[in-house]
């Protein structure tokens, strides 16, 4: 059975989630990436969207302005979440955001933020931007449009948005860190085997 999170997301909705679980999102998902994080944390500017209980998406979409003045989501997929590592813990604390959707892993600061302030990070499969766009029902608002198309805060109403793979849960687990340890253990003997066969300088 599909597991769906609906905004506003409450702390208890996240308690039973573990890394590797697949969930879907229904409700409000706001794009928020490099400059929005920097403006809130470093420049201390107030965000134009109240993110309490909502989900953010590390994404810079392609959006088309329709003839009636409304926006159409053409293509939207996740960007590398690690770029926001520097800001995310404080971001979670200050905004009350509950679900962070992006690509790839995040670091120890975000893990701490997720544990302390109850939030999760999830991966939407990168490059699957048309799948994601078709799950956006409507772009309700567009804030900070001065930042250009990729960095604008696009406020999306989504339905069954996913698959979202939980990569950081509220218990301090980090799926990408776990995987990295697996890769590192595997890597050394494989490399030794290769090195023994490429001694071309002799």
């Amino acid at each position, binding site marked *: 059975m599909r597991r769906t999170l609906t905004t506003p997301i409450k702390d208890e909705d996240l308690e039973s989630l573990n890394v*590797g679980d*697949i969930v879907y999102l229904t409700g409000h998902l706001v794009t928020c990436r490099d400059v929005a994080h920097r403006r809130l944390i470093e420049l201390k500017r107030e965000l134009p969207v109240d993110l309490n209980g909502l989900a953010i998406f590390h*994404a*810079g*979409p*392609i959006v*088309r302005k329709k003839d009636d003045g409304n926006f159409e989501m*053409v*293509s*939207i*997929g996740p*960007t*590398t*979440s*690690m770029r926001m590592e520097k800001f995310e813990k404080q971001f979670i604390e200050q905004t009350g955001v509950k679900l962070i959707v992006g*690509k*790839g*892993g995040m670091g120890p600061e975000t893990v701490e933020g997720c544990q302390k302030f109850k939030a999760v990070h999830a*991966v939407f*499969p*990168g*490059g*699957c*931007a*048309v*799948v994601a*766009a*078709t799950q956006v029902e409507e772009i309700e608002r567009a804030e900070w449009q001065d930042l*250009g*198309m*990729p960095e604008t805060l696009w406020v999306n109403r989504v339905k069954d948005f996913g*698959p979202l*793979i939980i990569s950081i849960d509220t218990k301090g687990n980090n*799926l*990408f860190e776990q*995987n*990295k340890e*697996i*890769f*590192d253990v*595997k*890597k050394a003997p*494989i*490399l030794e*085997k*290769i*090195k023994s*066969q*490429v*001694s*071309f*300088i002799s």
Partner: protein
Amino acid sequence: MDTNVASQTMTDIMAKFTAYVGKHLPNDITDKLAELRAKETNVLATEIYNAMAQNQDLANKLDRPSCQDTGVIQFFIAAGANFPYLGEVEEALRAATIEATKKGPLRHNAVETFDEKNTGDNTGSRLPWLDWEIVPGDDSLTIDVYMAGGGCTLPGAAKVLMPGEGYEGVAQFVFDVITNRGVNACPPLLVGVGVSTAVETAARLSKKALFRQVGSHHPNAKAAKMEQLLEDGLNEVGIGPQGLTGNASVMGVNIESSARHPSTIGVAVSTGCWAHRRGKIRIAADLSYEIFSHKGAVL
């Protein structure tokens, strides 16, 4: 042909082709992804491969860019020395980029460095990026179009090794880059490796390696062996789609090389994400064209 007409014709072809490349993966990549998907045994990885396949179908059906990051537009040109409109190519490719940005639509990805302003049309100083090679005795133009997305450009790295580090050092460097930074670059990746004298020569070759077909081999037997060893070895690590573990890590490893200074081994790695949007087209002297990367493509 009048040069203005020729310029307009080239612009039109390249605008349409660039927009097309953003929506359709080349045949070799599509085939390789289908193969990896069929072989995958990890449940989570299979779920992701399914989403990838569904995405490409939807992009085709809805005529939309398959990934929102349509990259910085790069053209790698092999220009016949006798191509009659050489002087018009640069301007035509610039106009084609602006046109493709509207037609695609492509995301606005050109930020003027230092000014930190998005130009809004994917052109800027030295953008689109052009790389030239002259082909003696030829009168056509062969262009590799590449959309350099942010995610798969980030792992790029180059280093000059001491000869004592040998090809063993090259293998180490490739593994370090892919296992540390390739994980976030939308694997399974196509890995381009350049082996040469300096950072810039190795880096350029590593990018050109990404234009070679998946499954093709370096003409030198030792280099081809090294490609295979690296591919098999990286797959054994099992990075999987999106770095979430799985049976494979890469679609392939392509090495390009040059002769080098005896005191250095320049090595570089460029990566292409699974949505490796590149296209190869040849424009003849009469401006008829042939597309090699996408069979049956209609512009």
